[in-house]
């Protein structure tokens, strides 16, 4: 409540009284951020499989497991943000079909259960059977349960795995698009808010999701190799970086297109949005999102496409870029979610939002939901180590 009084004292112009309180805080920034990481990581895995890009092979399982780890907590920011978190189940029991948010539960379940879990399951089924034969006690039982008590290791069964796995990857790509484009739609369909309401929103969300997911996998891949004291496959990194570069360009183009359209059209909301972007969002928009998150990575990656410095330098650059991109996309979500609530729908003024770094529940919860996936990932990698997979014979 004190922060509200502070916001009231620092009002800028006029704002509807109910708008002083920002309803969607940092947790809702985390929600599209995390979902975006899921979709992006998955799309990187699909690139490898569907388009058969061999160089990406070392990251295939890692990206799938990363996607799963983040997917498992993707709903948590949303749920913990609810005023009545225990009523969350209502969204699945009595979904209100005209609401974009109600469909979230189903899109989520579809993506988690049908796409991610199945793809990982088909990919690992054979290995899990082998592991269940090697392990003892509880772990044996655990792996057996994971295989749904199928111990078939015949070549035909592996072919079936391969076939269905591939098929699910193919379904998975539109599903990943759906998952994140849909998150964009949650914002893009709010006609009351001119900062959100644009048809480009799902597309922009989608491409920024790919950017962030690819950067995350790049980062995790390097981190895992560092922790395992293994040499990182620089060829693989170069390839990831190449795709990151392309998609960054696409993402940047789309976002610029959206802004240019907004600036040129200059409709009734333009004046207030101009003040918003130049004022309250200056740091997060121009410096963090555009500067650190987009322009620096694009130029560096662009240069790296033509001039290849030593391997070590490249690795360090990739590491820095992946972090920059992750930070930049975080601020992109910030600018959308928080930025969209900073100005009044009366177009006459602004409220303010200060993150409570110490003691704010939104901050601690957001951090929690960002850190937990890494622990889940560690567990998943321990449970399903990609490097212990049975190496396939190529025929």
């Amino acid at each position, binding site marked *: 409540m004190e922060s509200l009084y502070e916001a009231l004292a620092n009002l800028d112009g006029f704002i509807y009284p109910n708008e002083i309180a920002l309803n969607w805080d940092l947790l809702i920034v985390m929600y599209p951020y995390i979902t975006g990481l899921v979709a992006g990581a998955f799309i990187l895995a699909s690139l490898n499989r569907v388009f058969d890009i061999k160089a990406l092979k070392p990251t295939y399982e890692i990206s799938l497991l990363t996607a799963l780890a983040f997917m498992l907590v993707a709903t948590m920011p949303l749920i913990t943000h609810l005023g009545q978190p225990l009523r969350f*189940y209502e969204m699945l029991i009595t979904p209100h079909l005209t609401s974009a948010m109600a469909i979230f539960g189903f899109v989520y379940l579809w993506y988690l259960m049908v796409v991610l879990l199945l793809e990982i399951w088909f990919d690992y089924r054979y290995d899990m059977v082998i592991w269940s034969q090697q392990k003892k006690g509880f772990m044996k039982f655990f792996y057996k349960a994971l295989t749904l008590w*199928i111990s078939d290791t015949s070549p035909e069964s592996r072919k079936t795995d391969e076939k269905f796995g591939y098929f699910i990857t193919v379904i998975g790509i539109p599903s990943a698009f759906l998952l994140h484009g849909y998150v964009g739609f949650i914002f893009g369909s709010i006609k009351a808010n001119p900062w959100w309401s644009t048809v480009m929103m799902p597309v922009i969300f989608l491409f920024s999701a790919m950017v962030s997911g690819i950067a995350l996998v790049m980062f995790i891949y390097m981190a895992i190799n560092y922790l395992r004291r293994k040499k990182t496959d620089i060829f693989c990194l170069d390839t990831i970086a190449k795709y990151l570069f392309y998609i960054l360009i696409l993402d940047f183009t789309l976002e610029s297109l959206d802004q240019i359209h907004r600036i040129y059209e200059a409709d009734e909301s333009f004046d207030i949005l101009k003040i918003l972007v130049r004022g309250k969002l200056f740091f997060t928009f121009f410096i963090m999102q555009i500067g650190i998150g987009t322009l620096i990575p694009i130029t560096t990656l662009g240069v790296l496409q033509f001039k290849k410095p030593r391997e070590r330098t490249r690795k360090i650059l990739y590491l820095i870029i992946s972090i920059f991109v992750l930070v930049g996309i975080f601020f992109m979500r910030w600018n959308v979610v928080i930025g969209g609530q900073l100005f009044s729908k009366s177009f006459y003024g602004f409220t303010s939002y200060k993150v409570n770094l110490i003691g704010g529940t939104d901050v601690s919860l957001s951090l929690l939901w960002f850190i937990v996936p890494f622990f889940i990932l560690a567990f998943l990698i321990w449970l399903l180590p990609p490097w212990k997979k049975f190496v396939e014979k190529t025929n």
Partner: protein
Amino acid sequence: MPLQVKRLLLAFAVFIAIMLVLKYFLTPDSWREYGAYRGKALTEISGKEAKYVEMETCAECHDTIAGLKTQGLHVSVQCEICHGPGYKHADDPDNNDLEIPRERQFCLRCHTKNMASPQDIIKQIDAVEHNEGEECITCHNPHQPWL
């Protein structure tokens, strides 16, 4: 059909069945009575107690004041604007006193000079100058301003 697929289909069937059972038991009973919401919510909302009882109720006991007010210019000003919500008082007047706003500031809420207030709808006075320092009710009867 390969074994894996059969097992998976089974697993999904179990999952969907559980969801359907949950849906059956967790859907509230008056759901979809009128639309995609709980029909009972309507009666719940309309069942709330009203706090402002309106002038006719006050007039049952305070008929002189009510009569006075109807003849004056404050006829359109409801008793409860000045005295606060009367649902408790009307039930049990001895134990629930209403507020009686005697201070100048109170009348000035409506009568201060402000260009935004339409002059033909309400007479406005200068908040400071109009008989400074005296309570308005020493000269004006709140129930009938010109008495």
